[in-house]
């Protein structure tokens, strides 16, 4: 598990231990990666972050068009793995969690401990500093610097 900011580590570690998730990605709604667990290739993180942010954005737009409240979470149950995608508000702005889990756990457990992690993250945000807003022209360089930190390069 790697996180850009230390205060994210403990809530994420508790989530990983309790939920038994295989892969987890926490990112801002702009796709800037905040923390990751289980990914071994930078290219996978880049793709997952971009796709996750795009899926959340498009489903929120769909909810707006349909005149319903935004979806709380999106899930996909495959034969051997499930995917859980959920956006949540933090004092640092809107974040997105992407979780891949196997058959040794369940969607219910993932959702239960994800909600607890969100509570802990929301309460644990330090008063100072923060994940700065990412401008479109800075997006790529921000993403690459995040990836360097997340892979310890």
């Amino acid at each position, binding site marked *: 598990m790697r996180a850009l900011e230390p205060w994210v580590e403990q809530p994420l570690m508790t989530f990983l231990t309790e939920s038994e998730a295989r892969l987890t990605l926490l990112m801002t709604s702009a796709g800037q990666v905040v923390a990751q667990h289980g990914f071994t290739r930078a290219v996978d993180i880049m793709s997952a972050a971009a796709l996750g942010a795009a899926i959340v954005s498009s489903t929120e737009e769909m909810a707006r068009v349909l005149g319903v409240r935004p979806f709380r979470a999106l899930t996909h149950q495959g034969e051997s793995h499930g995917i859980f995608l959920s956006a949540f508000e933090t004092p640092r702005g809107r974040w997105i969690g992407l979780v891949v889990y196997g058959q040794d756990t369940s*969607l219910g*457990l993932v959702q239960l401990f994800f909600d607890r992690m969100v509570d802990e993250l929301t309460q644990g945000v330090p008063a100072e500093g923060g994940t700065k807003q990412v401008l479109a022209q800075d997006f790529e360089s921000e993403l690459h610097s995040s990836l360097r930190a997340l892979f310890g390069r």
Partner: protein
Amino acid sequence: MTALYLESLEGLTRLRGVAGAMVVSADDGLVVAESLMEGIPGDAVAALAASLMRRMGTTVSAAGFSRPSFMHLQAARGALLVVPAGPDILLIAIGDRHINLGLARIEMLQAAEQLG
């Protein structure tokens, strides 16, 4: 179907010591229908009880036994009862230490038969 679920659940919650009853998807541990006293965390009960039942099912299978038909977790300050209602659904009851276990078990097995 939801009306049938709720009818069964309300019958269970009338029993002494039962604080809530739920219909839960067995694989996901998600709530399908619930009748709970205030303060009972339905999502947590569903996810944790389904997970315990799944692990217990694996253990029972390793012993060469068929699928569990009833499970009871007794703790210092409460009890959790689980009965499969068909292959994909679990009927779950949560209660205090003084739950009438014999009666709750019979009621749950009957309700599961109706739901399954």
